[in-house]
């Protein structure tokens, strides 16, 4: 127990305390002075707008991932599908690659002279502007986070007791009823974890909005990055980080209340 406590103290507690400390100070000519100014600044409309946008985008991304990911997980988990090992492999391999590289590759696909538009030109169709807009950002987010939605749902569906399905059929449920009344409710823990594992990184991402959005959609992640790397206003950056952390902890708490038994197979 003690080694873990020490480790937690050193690597988790102390850094968080440091961030909170920074967030409560303001740099003046006489050094760091205690102040709530950073927090009051965070609540200005312009920054609230940024936070709202981050949450909204993350929400859209999570929704799309759920709608797209559930059927895929379902197909992969059904025993009749023979090539599922290969399909699983196809989903996992990109995850082993660097996040940045994967996002970069979309530039080549979506550019005005990129792959999609080149194909369209071959057929004499007009080119579309697919890059540097909100849609491109959501696309990039979905692409990067989809496996995190599919995997937990797949795991739960796979572990599901087949005999429960048969029992439902036995009692007169056709495929649709089995799906709605049995499969979906029982897969809820997986869905909850998937939603958590997508929403959390989605709300903090900054690379996707920089690269695919042309930096036109400032999100919380961009704001924090800016404060720490370019402006050197660590105090304000810390305040925004604290707000973000609170947001995430709140959402995780809500999610875990629903999934009491932790059957979701989540990574965190």
């Amino acid at each position, binding site marked *: 127990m003690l080694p873990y406590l020490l480790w937690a103290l050193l690597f988790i507690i102390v850094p968080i305390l440091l961030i909170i400390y920074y967030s409560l100070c303001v*740099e003046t000519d006489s050094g760091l002075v205690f102040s709530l100014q950073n927090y009051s600044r965070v609540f200005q409309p*312009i*920054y609230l*707008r*940024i936070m709202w946008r981050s949450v909204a985008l993350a929400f859209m991304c999570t929704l799309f991932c759920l709608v797209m990911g559930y059927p895929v997980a379902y197909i992969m988990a059904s025993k009749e599908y023979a090539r599922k090992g290969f399909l699983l492999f196809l989903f996992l391999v990109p995850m082993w690659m660097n996040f940045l590289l994967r996002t*970069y590759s979309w*530039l080549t696909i979506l*550019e*005005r*002279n*990129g792959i999609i538009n080149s194909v369209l030109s071959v057929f004499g169709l007009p080119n579309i*502007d697919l*890059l*540097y807009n909100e849609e491109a950002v959501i696309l990039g987010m979905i692409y990067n986070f989809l496996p995190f939605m599919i995997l937990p749902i797949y795991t739960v569906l796979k572990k599901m007791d087949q005999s429960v399905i048969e029992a439902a059929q036995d009692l007169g449920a056709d495929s649709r009823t089995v799906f709605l009344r049995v499969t979906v409710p029982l897969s809820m823990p997986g869905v909850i974890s998937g939603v958590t594992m997508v929403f959390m990184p989605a709300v903090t991402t900054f690379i996707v909005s*920089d*690269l695919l*959005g*042309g*930096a*036109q*959609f*400032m999100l919380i992640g961009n*704001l924090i990055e*800016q*404060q720490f*790397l*370019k*402006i*050197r*206003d660590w105090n304000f950056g810390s305040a925004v980080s604290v707000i973000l952390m609170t947001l995430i902890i709140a959402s995780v708490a809500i999610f875990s209340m629903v999934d009491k038994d932790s059957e979701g197979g989540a990574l965190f």
Partner: protein
Amino acid sequence: MKILRVLAPALVLAVLLSGCTGGGDDQVTLNVYNWGEYIDEDILATFTEETGIAVNYDTYATNEDMYAKLKSGGVSYDIAIPSDYMVQRMIDEDMLETLDPDNIPNLQYIFGWLKELEYDPGCVYSVPYMWGTLGILYNTDLVDDPVDSWNILWDEKYSGQIFMYNSQRDSFAVALKKLGYSLNTRDLTELEAAKAELILQAPLVRAYLGDTVRDSMIGNEAALAVVYSGDAIYCIENNPALAYAVPREGSNVWCDAVVIPKGSLHKAEAEKFIDFLCRTDISLKNTEYIGYSTVNTQTFDLLPAEMREDPAYWPGEDIFRICEVFVDLGSFLKEYDRAWTEVLASK
């Protein structure tokens, strides 16, 4: 497992032997810290041949990375090559050694104006390495108007065909210069005016990019982009339809300079290295490899005519006079940040 037994001692041996550089005992090694892809590595070999001093070469991606590494004090570097504003910050924080000009006779070949830049007038702490301008890279196939003013970036005709830089200082420099103000202004009204201009421009801008602007322009993704001269040279090489211009309102001049961080154990040898870099033939080799503008007057004269007349290498005397170097704005930078956030959030 058997392979491990052979590999392990071999690895240990390799590590030990790599420490040996051959040659006499007491050999000095310089730790050089530079941007990635920012030197002709043959030069390092030549240096070692001529002086017997070995060079340990390390790279970084941004000034901030380099600053963080040096601040942490983990490794001691003898040479670093930060950008102008970063040199200034390091001087302010007493992180640099003063240079002994007697040990750097080749200083005489550096352009006089480069030695008097605001961040380190008189080259007390630093010697210029490469310099350039900020300007407009444009695609001659897509732009038929003359490109000689920042105003073209506000022209509705090019809506959706403009790339701006995803950087506060650079984008505000463009707006401030367009309005005729200094790009180092600490005047809030001037800043707000520039902000208003950028917000006005925002609907026309396709994207605010970082490094990806180079590949995008080479790929004909847009008509106009704000880029640094060094990047412009690279782009033009890869896409001859591109051209570069520095607007008549003036722009930013940037300079990367060589410094010796405090705590270097080989100051004399480091100064030798700096002197070596300033040598005309070495400077020529370096400039040809990197592609940026040379700091050496003699080297400049040795360059072919088309290069000397290309605005990417030399913007011309008149325009040059109204260019400014970025100066560290200290706590006023927060105002720029706030304004920049408001520009980006306006979309």
